[in-house]
């Protein structure tokens, strides 16, 4: 029992370090990708090809002064970034990186991740409210409406996957997927996959849906009043959230750890490649599309994605009952 607990803690420490390293280099990757898409170099100064840039950024943020606004609501202001980070990091627990390798393979994995992703929205809303600043307030308000709107679309988009896999357990979804005639659910669930991709961008507050923090009108939105490492915690939460969403997309639609052939000694390779591709997709969209207007975001969520997702559920039902039977 004691050994089991120690092993679990060791596993958590290892996974946590790997995720943090990924977050650090996700920022570097983002700046490089967007840089090259805009025909410039991205970070080049710190280390060869700017490779040490994330570490320099981290050190800088750590030593920054912690500004605490006079009018802010103290406990909520303290709690908000931590809620964001904890909610995002806890979702990592149920993600299977390869066969049998998850911190905790609970039977309601998918539901747990949905719950945690809406909890991360809480952090954003509380931050906007607690800052007691107009920009932050507006950012938090917009975030709350946007996150709840796209949560419905996201929740509905994966119903098709649940119908096909017959489980909420992440590993079983991957296994059912590998046994299905298509190999990955992105083919029979193409509509669901599309809705998921759009909702994924909106849930993590990424461009083109970054209304909660759109710098051209709200300064920095909900994190306007946050400085130094508190701001960094929001940043970490956002990037961990991206990694989690990319992993969910990989597991539900792209076949998780399964690949065209087995790679010995390195079973995580396919999972990693697929997650990297989806993270690249986040940056690709950011470099390509301008920001939506707020009413357009709401219209897209409520009038396009929800009917599409519901249609996908009905379509999957028809196909499962009458065609693939």
């Amino acid at each position: 029992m004691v050994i089991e607990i120690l092993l679990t803690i060791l596993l958590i420490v290892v996974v946590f370090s790997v995720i943090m390293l990924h977050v650090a280099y996700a920022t570097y990757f983002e700046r490089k990708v967007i840089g090259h898409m805009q025909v410039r170099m991205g970070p080049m100064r710190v280390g060869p090809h700017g490779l040490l840039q994330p570490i320099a950024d981290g050190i800088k943020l750590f030593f920054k002064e912690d500004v605490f606004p006079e009018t802010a609501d103290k406990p909520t202001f303290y709690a908000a970034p931590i809620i964001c980070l904890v909610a995002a990091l806890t979702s990592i627990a149920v993600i299977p990186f390869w066969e049998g390798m998850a911190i905790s393979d609970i039977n309601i994995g998918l539901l747990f991740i949905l719950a945690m992703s809406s909890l991360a929205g809480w952090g954003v809303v509380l931050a906007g409210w607690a800052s007691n600043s107009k920009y932050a307030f507006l950012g938090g308000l917009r975030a709350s409406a946007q996150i709840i709107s796209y949560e419905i679309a996201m929740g509905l988009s994966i119903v098709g996957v649940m119908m096909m896999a017959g489980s909420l357990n992440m590993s079983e979804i991957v296994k059912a997927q590998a046994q299905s005639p298509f190999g990955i659910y992105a083919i029979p669930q193409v509509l669901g996959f599309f809705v998921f991709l759009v909702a994924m961008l909106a849930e993590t507050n990424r461009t083109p849906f970054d209304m909660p923090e759109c710098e051209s009108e709200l300064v920095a939105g909900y994190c306007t009043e946050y400085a130094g490492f508190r701001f960094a915690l929001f940043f970490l939460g956002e990037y961990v959230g991206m990694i989690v969403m990319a992993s969910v997309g990989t597991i539900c639609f792209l076949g998780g750890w399964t690949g065209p052939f087995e790679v010995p000694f390195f079973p995580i390779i396919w999972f990693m490649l697929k997650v990297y591709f989806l993270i690249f997709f986040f940056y690709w969209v950011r470099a390509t599309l301008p920001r939506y207007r707020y009413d357009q975001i709401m219209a897209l969520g409520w009038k396009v994605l929800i009917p599409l997702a519901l249609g996908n559920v009905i379509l999957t039902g028809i196909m499962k009952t009458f065609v693939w039977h």
Partner: protein
Amino acid sequence: MPGSYLPSDYMSVLFLLLFALGFGVAAIALGQLLRLRRPYHEKLVAYESGNEPTELPRFRFSVKFYLIAILFAVFDVECIFLYPWAIVYDKLGLFAFAEMLIFIFLLLAGYVYAWGKGALTWER
């Protein structure tokens, strides 16, 4: 075996949660010892493009946001009802399909009504 279920799977989830919490708190608390602190009034005032803040920041906002929240409560609950149905879809067959068509039809009726009333349209 009813009554013998021990949610031991959730133990590691709890550990990870505590670990993440510890990381967040420790990073802020430890940094506090190393960080420079030089607060003065102008720095601590809520940001408003360099001006003194006017009025209260928590002003009245559009009633639309409340409407969205109510619609969310309705639709999200109905969405949750779809989950158990989706999980056992294979076992129930045609019965489940017909049942769900009725449910989704009712959901759509409410949706069309809300749309017709202009609840989903933002600008007015």
